[in-house]
């Protein structure tokens, strides 16, 4: 096998620019965790089935495990490490604590990034629609009721920027 070339890319992650040399087959998830040591984003299935790796790319929620980092050159990425405002937790983070929206916590970073993306999309009106549009994030502990309660509180409070 002939050696394949690396690519120089710039990623803006949580408002910090990173310049990295990357092989084309490396996922955005692996770059975040292994290169940038931002281990809040979790690797669950690594095949786009569980949602644990959800991050926001240019404001949209996507799966970082099915994204090649080289394809996101120049993009702005928000991970769980970047959703709080300094010491002030994001409203979704606060609501997750209030509603006990986790047990083991492994799916939580993906759930929170997904919920922030979903509220920004503005397509879910009812609880049933919120459930439907959060179905890409699995919680094997079964904390779904708390998760949806937390999201509904923030959604109805209207404060989710």
């Amino acid at each position: 096998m002939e050696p394949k070339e690396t690519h120089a890319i710039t990623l803006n992650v949580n408002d910090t620019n990173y310049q990295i040399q990357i092989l084309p087959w490396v996922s955005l998830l692996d770059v975040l965790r292994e290169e940038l040591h931002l281990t809040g984003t979790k690797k669950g299935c690594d095949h786009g089935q569980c949602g644990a790796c959800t991050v926001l790319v240019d404001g949209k929620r996507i799966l970082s495990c099915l994204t090649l980092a080289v394809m996101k050159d120049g993009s702005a990425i928000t991970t769980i490490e970047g959703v709080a405002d300094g010491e002030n937790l994001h409203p979704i983070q606060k609501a997750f604590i209030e509603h006990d929206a986790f047990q083991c916590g492994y799916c939580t970073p993906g759930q929170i990034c997904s919920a922030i993306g979903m509220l920004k999309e503005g397509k879910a009106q009812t609880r049933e629609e919120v459930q439907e549009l959060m179905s890409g994030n699995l919680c094997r502990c079964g904390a779904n009721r708390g998760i949806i309660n937390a999201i509904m509180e923030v959604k109805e409070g209207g404060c989710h920027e």
Partner: protein
Amino acid sequence: MNNFSYTKVSNVQEAISELDGDIRNKIVAGGTNINDLLKYFITKADKLVDINPVSENNSIIRLDNGGIRLGALHTNADTAYDPIIEERYPLLSRAILAGASAQIRNMATNGGNLMQRTRCYYFYDINTPCNKRDPGSGCSAIQGYNRIHAILGQSENCIAVFPSDMCVALAALSATVNIMGPNGERNLAFAEFHRLPGDTPNIDNNLKHGEVITSIDLPRQGFEKNYSYLKLRDRSSYSFALVSVATGFEIENGSIKEARIALGGVAHKPWRNTEAEDFLKDKEPTRENFTAAATILLEGAKGYQQNAFKIELAKRAIIRNCFMALNPESQRPGAKPSL
């Protein structure tokens, strides 16, 4: 993943020249399926050609004939939520939103949706024989676990199903696929795009190596008054269809002027039979007529050990969805049953 090189192109001509007709050079757009297939070593690539910067294919435009052109690079989410699509082609919008998850719909493109591959468990398991993955090795599903497999149009070589929801609606709408290749442009009627497995189940569709899908055209008729997409599955969201149905009616003075019915989850391509649609023409929308149409659609259906239930399920789903199309307001998120 195997080691591949990567190049980004800014127009279709460049993409075609980078592909160079070589099967090991692959297009990547949303990446939701190909990156997964690469991880499992089901697809191997020498080079990925990233077409995302091809801006001319990333829009929704109105056509002079009253139809709409969907850019191949427009995402599934942006297409489903586009105000024109929601208003004039709600069947398409509903079908897209019944598929995958919100994150995947944000990534996946319209062209890529057509190019996704089956989710047959044996196709995905490289330790088992599969004629689609490894031609001539045999089909593990026919004698194996085949709950999600085909009941129509299958062959003794392959009983895999095409998993898309979006494409079921595109089939019902009689869309057209626009293609660019080394020899210029051509287009395929949607029914001609995907193919049945026959003796070559490794070939999913009639796109040739080196060709690129540029857009998908919708005709003027969107069945926006009477439409419904019903998806039946083991889990009520984020799961592939056991059976899905896209139905559109044009109703005038209490009788059906035009009917469209396409099925998903039952064959190697979205399944339509114009005989069933012609039968409904100029008839009243009654249970009796819907049942007769469903029977025509399921003619020749053949089940296997675990999926024979799909034949009756599909019949009932067709009838139910015909009633839901009479009252589109009855639809629920994710194309769940409503009656």
